[in-house]
């Protein structure tokens, strides 16, 4: 259940931003999770719901963008079909996306000066 440790790191990161802005209320977090990131999205949501209480994320929604895994040939740029041997043009294919564990954006309500 490393999803809890990921949420802990996420909340720590958001706290840094929120504490730098007095009175800010975190409303939404946008994260991006790749198919080959090793992160189970439903578990991540559960971990967030459990962990966010009494943190700056208590009132925040979590928006998760799931990114499919894409393997490409470096030479011909062909996208390999799912489950294929990861070689093309006699060379190893490259993962062109789908291992993301990223915080993209924080939305906060901040008091006007």
């Amino acid at each position, binding site marked *: 259940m490393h999803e809890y440790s990921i949420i802990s790191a996420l909340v720590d990161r958001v706290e840094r931003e929120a504490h730098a802005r007095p009175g800010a209320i975190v409303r939404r977090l946008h994260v991006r999770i790749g198919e080959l990131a*090793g*992160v189970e999205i439903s578990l991540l949501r559960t971990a967030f719901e459990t962990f966010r209480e009494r943190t700056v994320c208590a009132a925040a929604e979590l928006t998760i963008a799931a990114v499919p895994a894409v393997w490409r040939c470096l030479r011909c740029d062909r996208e390999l079909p799912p489950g294929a041997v990861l070689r093309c043009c006699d060379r190893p294919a490259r*993962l062109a996306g789908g291992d993301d564990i990223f915080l*993209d954006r924080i*939305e906060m309500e901040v008091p006007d000066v």
Partner: protein
Amino acid sequence: MCEDCGCGDPALVPVDPTGGFAPRPAGEAVGVSTPHLAALDVHEHILAGNNALASHLRAHFVEAGVLAINLMGSPGSGKTAVLERTARLAGDRWRFGAVSGDLATDHDARRLAAAGITAATITTGSGCHLDARLVHDALHDLPWRSFDLFAIENVGNLVCPAIYDLGQAANVVALSVTEGEDKPLKYPVMFRKADLVLLTKIDLLPHLEVDLDAIRDALSRVMPEPRMIAVSARTGEGIAEWLAWLEAQRPEAAGAGASHAHAHGSR
């Protein structure tokens, strides 16, 4: 509904992240305020803190000429047994250190120590993986700079350990012949991260119906550069090839012996 910010109110426009987002100067009057929604683009790896510490460890390992290996695999896949055998065969050539991660007990570290390895335990409690912080803290109790080979025996688990960079030079995944030929297809994240798969317990092959080509085929669908060495910790078969692989991974010893010049960060 505003798709940009999800605020639901077109009057609440996201502000420019640099212009509208500066911290309020200390002591400035707040007065009566109307909250507005601000969007801060971060685009940062959520485990950036772990990854930064892992990079710090990696720099130290390279500078000290230590080959650090992150050894992962299921519980019971034979990680400790391979290290024991490795130490018995290479102990006179290499100074060999290890940390062993388990939820409880120091049994593995005791076994490694009995095989001549300078070993420490990282007890994770309920933690399912090691992270860079745990490895970093364990190093303070080990004469790690003197090691030629430093094995980080991760918690037995084919899922979580794959995600955490520990500063290793290479990831090695132990897969025992009793685990099933399609294991790599079931745990693609772990095997994709592997630089080497050690197929362990091959002394059991006469008693099993295992198709090694099926394992190789499964690996070729999850690892772009599949590399597998079949070993038996019991008979020693394949261990020489494993030692040769390790030898090839050794860092350039150019920086070895240089002083630990920069200040250590906070513990």
